[in-house]
């Protein structure tokens, strides 16, 4: 590949740019008016404005992105995650334009994007799926019939879209019709498609996903599991690998199933097969995430494989040079997603200027960062700021390292989830690996019972008072700072201003 256009922003655009530069491939960024000085623009070799701040008029504008790729002469587009990453029409448009879309084919994207069709495909392949409806129901009565057949509790889900939007839990027959109506209404407004279906509700499951890599020559491997059960409003916030709930036998069976899923849909490139793992050890196929995932670094730490590099090699038509036998898990990795959200205020998104930024570092610490000190976080996009990933020899060492890294991590100027994540990682439940999907409601409901220790409060008070006193000192001196020996560099030559 001669030049890659990255059709994304934030930390993932920075991370993809690094992979390209690691391979010696020039990188073009795109930016909206809100992102002119965002980190992904500063890090790119070229940059093209694609529209105003709203994503619909910039990062989601297929024509603007295609035009930008044409303008810089890119021969490939990396979509990152979100925005156009799983939009099969966009992939098709790239294919038609002769631009390589770094991801699966539009055909595979189309298939895995439709939950009902992919469930049908999986059933035909003997992939375990959650008991429920196979096709789009003809009527609400058909839903009722199915719900009674599989037994309550059931879930009513939207056929299109994701992120739990429109999902309804129904515990008895009497509540079903209301739930269907609500679900249809939400799905209609969110996705423009009000098709819903019912399936069996698995209680207190784990969310286990398998990373796969598939080339365009039929080779498929899996890179083991990630556990992503800790979610808030169906958004993952902490991910890890390996899972505390998966032993080597289960890992082998789930991994084989993931590979089978990828083959069944004709998948090429990097992808993720999501499963629900029941407490009884049975697992069910959920969906395919047809993109690089936010949480891909935990797999990179554990397997030593650079997934974005593999994406680019696969899209270049190369054969995988990794076999399943080459792959092994080493140590344990944990990721925390750092959001610009205010935990003290209902997790409302926070925007504004980063007044101070101290990034954690050191052995076994990776910070995939999309921000810098002095930058203003815009209000228009997903509030993810960065991802903190740690790796150590075992889970407890990784957990303690994550605590250390979070305690080194300062962001001032906006609200973030750093302290909230520290509480999660420090909790007994997390330490014990009790990470079912109800973790947040069960273990984080009564947070902030204790305030910070007295000595921390006093240290902060001392720092505050000293900084105000220094401010007074500066004002009195009438100068911004003391002259240090280094400042007195010696006489300068004189420049000439000719106009």
């Amino acid at each position, binding site marked *: 590949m001669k030049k890659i256009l990255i059709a994304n922003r934030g930390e993932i655009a920075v991370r993809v740019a690094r992979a390209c530069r690691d391979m010696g491939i020039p990188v073009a960024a795109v930016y909206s008016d809100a992102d002119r000085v965002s980190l992904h623009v500063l890090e790119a070799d070229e940059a093209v404005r694609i529209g105003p701040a709203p994503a619909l008029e910039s990062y989601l504008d297929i024509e603007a992105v295609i035009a930008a790729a044409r303008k810089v002469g890119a021969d490939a587009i990396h979509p990152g995650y979100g925005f156009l990453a799983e939009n099969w029409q966009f992939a098709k448009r790239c294919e038609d334009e002769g631009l390589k879309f770094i991801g699966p084919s539009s055909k595979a994207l189309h298939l895995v994007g439709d939950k009902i069709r992919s469930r049908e495909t999986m059933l035909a392949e003997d992939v375990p799926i959650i008991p429920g409806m196979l096709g789009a129901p003809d009527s609400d009565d058909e839903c009722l019939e199915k719900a009674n057949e599989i037994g309550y509790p059931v879930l009513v889900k939207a056929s299109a879209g994701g992120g739990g939007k429109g999902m309804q839990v129904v515990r008895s027959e009497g509540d079903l019709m209301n739930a269907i109506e609500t679900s249809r209404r939400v799905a209609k407004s969110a996705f423009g498609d009000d098709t819903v279906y019912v399936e069996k509700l698995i209680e207190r499951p784990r969310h286990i996903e398998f990373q796969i890599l598939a080339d365009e020559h039929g080779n498929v491997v899996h890179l083991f599991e990630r556990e992503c059960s800790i979610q808030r409003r169906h958004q993952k916030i902490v991910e890890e690998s390996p899972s505390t709930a998966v032993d080597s036998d289960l890992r082998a069976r789930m991994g084989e199933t993931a590979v089978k899923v990828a083959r069944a849909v004709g998948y090429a490139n990097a992808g993720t097969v999501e499963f629900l793992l029941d407490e009884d050890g049975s697992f069910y196929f959920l969906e395919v995430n047809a993109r690089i995932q936010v949480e891909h670094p935990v797999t990179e730490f554990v397997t030593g494989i650079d997934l974005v590099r593999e994406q680019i090699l696969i899209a270049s038509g190369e054969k995988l040079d990794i076999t399943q036998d080459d792959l092994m898990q080493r140590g344990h990795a944990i990721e925390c997603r750092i959001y610009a959200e205010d935990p003290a205020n209902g997790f409302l998104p926070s925007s504004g200027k980063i*007044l*101070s930024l*101290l990034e954690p570092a050191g052995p076994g610490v990776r910070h995939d960062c999309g921000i810098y*000190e002095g930058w203003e976080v815009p209000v228009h996009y997903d509030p993810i700021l960065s991802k903190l990933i740690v790796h150590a020899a075992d889970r407890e060492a990784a957990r303690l390292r994550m605590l250390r890294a*979070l*305690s*080194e*991590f*300062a962001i*001032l*100027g906006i609200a973030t989830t*750093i*302290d909230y994540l*520290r509480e999660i990682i420090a909790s007994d439940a997390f330490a014990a690996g009790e990470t079912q999907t109800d973790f947040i409601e069960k273990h984080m409901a009564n947070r902030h019972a204790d*305030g*910070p220790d007295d000595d*921390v*409060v*006093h*240290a*902060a*008070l*001392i*720092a*505050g*008072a*000293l*900084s*105000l*006193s*220094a*401010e*007074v*000192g500066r*004002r*009195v001196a*009438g100068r911004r700072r003391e002259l240090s020996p280094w400042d007195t560099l010696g006489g300068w030559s004189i420049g000439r201003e000719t106009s």
Partner: protein
Amino acid sequence: MEYEFSVAGEKYAVRVEGKPPHARVVIGERKYEVDWSQVPGGVISMIVDGESRTARVAARDGGLVVWVDGHRLDLDVGTAEDESVGRAGGGAGGSGIIKAPMPGSVVKVLVSEGEEVSAGQSLVIVEAMKMENEVRSPLDGVVKAVNVSAGDSVGTSETMVEVEPAE
């Protein structure tokens, strides 16, 4: 110098004595011997009775935000009873004596004597702790006096602007 802060609703008076790099800081009954140094980037390195504490301090609406050894705390400067001026958006009420929220320098004066102002309107821009901050009128009224101009250094005890309440 003494400062009043409140943290999570609790009030603290903090007295600073001595000259840098040494300070004695008194909080209530507790006395701390502090060896301290400002580090570029809004960082303060303190050795408090032998403990190394590294803090980052930035201005925020109503006070400071302080990060110290992995903990982030909001410090309100002053306390509710001490407020001679209500917060912006708090509407009318309070007196019209407008002081600087922190020691700083006046960047711009936005009103002049005799001008009518309304609650929430910006009167003066003060730079402190590397942030520029609008100081707003707490009430509707008329500007009676303007005691500062751009470039002035101001402390927290000086009245910058006086606003005579309407009615």
